[in-house]
């Protein structure tokens, strides 16, 4: 039972990270029909932004900055930084290719992903960066908490999971209840028709990148609070985030959330009950099966292709 609780907790934390990344994929895919390979690396850069904020503010030992403020600033810093990065990527790598054949922006996205990962490695080296060296994990947020059975659940975990869900709900409101969200949905439905209705497509696309990248930045900090980050993590985590989006049905926001959680749980339970050695193999095989037999995902709708 304790194992189960622990694994569920792990799955929930990891899954909420995947869900935040998957949302970025889904949003961009929705409006641009582009698989943004660089998104995983934006996530990675976000975790570095968090590290930078932590370093500048002097870590948990700084009496001027309480830990809750520190965490908030880290997440905010990463979100703002990643939003700027995302807009720059869109402006310089994708926009010139908007009317090119579909394979062109995809290859450009690969180039951006490769460029980001190796630039970070060039600037900061390939070694892992652990938030723990700033004494964060000695604080009450990590030590306090409550127990279920013999499993200790630190407050930081709960905060991470809750804030991930808060972000998702905010996004949901943004897309469903605001004017901009309506414009996003319209663009996603039919870009040309939306343009004819007077929607500024460029603005919507930029906004989409802002939101998606900001979510990735937040996910980056939340991830790095548990696991040391490194310049090379973006690729595989981005891949998993994308599959989470596919499981849920690409283009669908609740789908991305559900897909992220499913992927997180699947990974945690496979690793805990079955095999750690082959867990990646199991997950990737399941995902290939998913893509083959239900490419529209759980909550996606099959589009009708008109010629």
């Amino acid at each position, binding site marked *: 039972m304790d194992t189960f609780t622990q694994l569920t907790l792990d799955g929930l934390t990891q899954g909420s990270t995947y869900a935040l990344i998957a949302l970025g994929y889904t949003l961009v895919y929705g409006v641009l029909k582009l698989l943004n390979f660089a998104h995983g690396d934006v996530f990675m850069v976000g975790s570095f932004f968090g590290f930078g904020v932590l370093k500048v503010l002097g870590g948990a030992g700084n009496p001027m900055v309480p830990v809750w403020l520190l965490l908030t600033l880290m997440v905010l810093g990463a979100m703002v930084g990643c939003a700027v990065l995302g807009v720059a990527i869109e402006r310089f790598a994708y926009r010139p290719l908007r009317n090119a054949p579909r*394979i062109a922006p995809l*290859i450009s996205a690969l*180039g*951006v*992903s490769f460029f980001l990962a190796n630039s970070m490695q*060039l*600037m900061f080296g390939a070694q892992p960066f652990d938030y723990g060296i700033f004494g964060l994990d000695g604080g009450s947020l990590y030590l306090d908490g409550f127990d279920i059975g013999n499993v200790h659940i630190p407050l930081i975990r709960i905060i991470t999971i809750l804030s991930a869900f808060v972000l998702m709900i905010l996004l949901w409101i943004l897309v469903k209840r605001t004017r901009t969200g309506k414009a996003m949905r319209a663009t996603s439905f039919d870009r040309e028709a939306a343009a004819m209705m007077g929607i500024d497509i460029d603005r919507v696309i930029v906004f989409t990148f802002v939101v998606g990248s900001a979510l990735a930045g937040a996910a980056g900090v939340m991830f790095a609070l548990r696991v040391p980050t490194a310049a090379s993590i973006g690729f595989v985590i981005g891949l998993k985030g994308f599959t989470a989006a596919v499981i849920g049905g690409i283009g669908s926001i609740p789908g991305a959330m559900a897909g992220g959680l499913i992927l997180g749980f699947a990974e945690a339970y496979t690793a805990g009950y079955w095999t750690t050695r082959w867990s*990646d193999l199991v997950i990737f095989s399941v995902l290939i099966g998913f893509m083959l037999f239900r490419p529209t995902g759980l909550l996606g709708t099959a589009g009708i292709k008109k010629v």
Partner: protein
Amino acid sequence: MSEPPALPPPDPSQTPTGPAIGQDEWVARHGERRSRRAGLIGDAEDRLRRAPWWAWLVLFVAAFALLPVVSGDGYIRRVAFDTTIYMLLALGLNVVVGWGGLLDLGYVAFYGIGAYTYALLNSHQLGVHLPTLVTIPIVVVAGAVAGFLVGLPSRRLIGDYLAIVTLFFLQIFLTVATNGDQIAGRNITGGANGILNVDPLHLLGHSLVVEHQGVFAVGYLYISIALFAVVYTALHFVNHSRTGRAWRSLREDPLAAEAMGMPVNLLKLMAFSFGAAIAALTGTVFASLNASVFPLSFSFPLVITVYTMVILGGQGNLAGVTVGAVVISVLLELLRDAGDARILFYLVGLLVLAYAFGRSRKLVAMLAALIVFGFAAHAAADLIHHNWVNGPAANGLDSVLSHWVIIPTSLNTWIGPVSYITLICLVLALTLVHGWTRDILLVPTVYLGTFVWENVLLAQPDATRYIVLGVMLIGLMIVRPNGLLGERRMEII
């Protein structure tokens, strides 16, 4: 009722003069409309253009074959060999991406499958030692079958989904190769340590040695260049066959191809199988030469490298992707060594400036401004602190250059990232501004570029190589998606 006048029977002796069936006349007579340079250069250009494809191939292969005769340097031979491997890989990828138009990001997995199959059939791992002439067909068939199996999803998937599924396939391959030392308790792939002591290629009882008296032996170079010639020739004929034409029509518009009655699914599967078989064949040479295989040799950076080759050369053009492979392979090799990379950088920089400004007074003004700016910045830095310009690398440069570029004795940890990010921002800004603002902005950008190159990028050749590849991919897609020699597609709107 008037009968239509009976047409005279076609005269068999008269050869048709118009374009071939299915070819637009405007397209067919494209060559005649092309403006041609006058004089000897024009004549030579025309003659070169009319040279048959095999003449180029023979020339190219002969150049490679003569390389070891000209130079006994083992390093150069080794680089030449690596280049041929890249050329083969690029040819294979060209079938899938260039002709089939299928974005296969798991391509190097087939290369890995080929290498591992060869290693398993020719080492102590399974205790099997097959003759090379038996192994190679097995490997090629294994590769083709693997390509077929991975291609099966491509019947249903398009574009991005296919890219992701093939990428998963690569990850699965790497997982299996890395963890394959405990499959049901047996050691199959040797895990992360790979398979060691793989037999060399052996023909008719003779083993092909890798090193002869400490120098890279020419045998493998000849084998791989011969393989290249064979594959190139085969692909040339495939390209001009029904299948080749069908592939290209599939690439241009799968829907139209299907409507025309082409077996789209079969064509996709064939493209995958062809590419995979070539990659697997290349894997055998790679494994036998290195006498070992490791999972890390087949990871994602290699995919990007081969893609850059194909795109730089021009997707769909055999000669193009070959040239692309040679250029990138040599480039990556030069970037390994700081001295070579430095010369390359200044050479390429000058060429780009000359190309951008043409033979105008602007170029002279720009160079003069650069030189003045550099010396001024250098002098200013020297005034502030002598250590700022007294770096160790300065001695390696020509004395003039060392008075121009700022190379500090030691770099503060933050200077590297800050200058690098500033450089990126400046370059991006350059693409936005026009006119004289751009010219003025260009001078500090180029100068900062040399600073970053000397101090940041040269210090980490590995990251730099991949950064160069990434930038090339983005830039090529935007500026010249058809590559150096790619055929220009007709956009019909």
